[in-house]
């Protein structure tokens, strides 16, 4: 556990009418600049936990226990990049709107800031010069815009909800590199939700393994992957690791 946590989740419990233990007794904390991974199968409550941190629970789901303490603002990168953008609004305009709204800049200044931010995220010049709509961008490009949107809020914590799941493998890698580079530069903390253990181990210093709404194991990434204590964690690792071995795991 970190010394000065900027986000503390204590005994969080989320319930719907049908299932009172969608997320049950989940606790973790993050320090400044740290990255925490939430891994686990679909439906294990990872995304719900993230949404609870944002205060954006879907209708019909309520927080019934525990508390979330955060001293900094948070922003979220969603799973489906194209779905996270208004389809009828040019991307530069969307980004400029958020910048002007959050940072109180004038129209022109916020547009300029938007263009600079998109450049930082490595979007080609053509996308920045013309008014492009989300449907004209590739998935990876959309995800870069979504990350830019989140960064426009100058978040202390970036919440990533499977940001690479909807992308090609090669694009996944680029996006992860981009996020890592930005994190080093800007120093935000991250909660990284994924079901991909390879991605999680590359990104995160600590991991929480979730199953059926509970954290079954939590710890340092390396030690957790090398010596998993829980049977479910072992299963998760065994189900993932064979792929890198087949593709030349010797070099690792």
């Amino acid at each position, binding site marked *: 556990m970190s010394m000065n946590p900027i986000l503390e989740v204590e005994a969080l419990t989320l319930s719907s009418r049908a299932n009172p233990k969608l997320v049950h007794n989940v606790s973790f904390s993050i320090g400044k600049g740290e990255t925490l991974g939430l891994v686990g199968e679909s439906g294990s409550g990872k995304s719900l936990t993230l949404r609870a941190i944002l205060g954006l629970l879907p*209708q019909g789901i309520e927080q019934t226990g525990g508390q979330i303490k955060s001293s900094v603002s948070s922003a979220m990168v969603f799973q489906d990049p194209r779905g996270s953008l208004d389809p009828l609004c040019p991307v530069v305009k969307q980004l400029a709107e*958020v910048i002007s709204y959050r940072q109180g800049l004038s129209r022109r200044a916020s547009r300029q800031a938007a263009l600079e931010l998109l450049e930082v995220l490595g979007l080609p010049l053509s996308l920045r010069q013309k*008014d492009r709509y989300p449907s004209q961008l590739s998935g990876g490009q959309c995800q870069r815009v979504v990350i830019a949107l989140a960064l426009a809020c100058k978040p202390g914590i970036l919440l990533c909800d499977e940001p690479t799941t909807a992308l090609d493998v090669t694009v996944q890698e680029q996006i992860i590199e981009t996020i890592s580079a930005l994190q080093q530069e800007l120093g935000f903390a991250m909660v990284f939700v994924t079901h991909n253990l390879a991605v999680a181990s590359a990104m995160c210093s600590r991991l929480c393994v979730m199953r059926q709404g509970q954290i079954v194991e939590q710890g340092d990434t390396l030690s957790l992957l090398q010596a998993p204590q829980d049977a479910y964690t072992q299963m998760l690792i065994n189900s993932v690791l064979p792929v890198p071995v087949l593709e030349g795991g010797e070099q690792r």
Partner: protein
Amino acid sequence: MKTISAHNLTGPSRKSQGTLRRILKNPTLLGGIIMLAILVLLAILIPVISPYDPSAQDLRAFLQPPSAEHWLGTDQLGRDLFTRLIYAARTDLTIMVLAEIIPFCTGVFLGMLAGYYGKWIDNIISLVTDTFVAFPFYLIVIIVAFASGAGQRGIFITFMLVGWIVFARVTRGVTVSLRQQEWVASAQTLGLSGIRIMFRHILPNVLPQAVVVLMTDMVGLLVAIVTLGYLGIGIAPPTPDWGTMISDGQSFITTAWWLSAMPGLAVVYTGIALSLVGDGLADLWRRR
């Protein structure tokens, strides 16, 4: 093949393709627009085209069949039917458009409000719309028209009261489905206010559907205006109106059938034009 790959290289750019070109490629929309344009042009230019006054009676030349002098003949008071028909288009189309503007705006706004915020706002708005829908449309129209007095004022009041319902229902439905999309949640997490999300982002996504409904609803409104005129509780004579023209011509249906048939055809023509525009727009926006 070469042109295709070259086109792909430059990338599909929605703006550069041009709205005009996309309209030209859409025969339904183009047809509807042309039909409407002809009607509107005639209505604007009728004082220039026709030498007759729409309400000037000429009892020496009553109930004349169509001729070179009177293109569609004359009515029982010797008034030129073609002139009256187009002046009636002025009256009816103006009322139709004016009576549709405010209900359209309020309906879209209330629908977005209900769909976006849900909960009690949605409950109240849905309750009102569902109650109105349970009544037969013409029953409400005739009751309100009678209560508020015949004439244009009655029509405006009636449609102020009931016209917004259809837009509110459609807009609410679309908004609810948009609300579940991730970008709305994303916009909320980015800190944009509800009002801003509604007007800057939901509205452009809702508007195409609402405008398509507007076109079909205008047809219904036109028919209602004409029906009220026909029943004698709509636009009062001597202002020319298709409804009163149909009912006036009824007594002469065996000898001068065109007196009723022509205003009727004018309603059908306008209805077809508006429907074509509505269909065309729906098609245009669906392909986007």
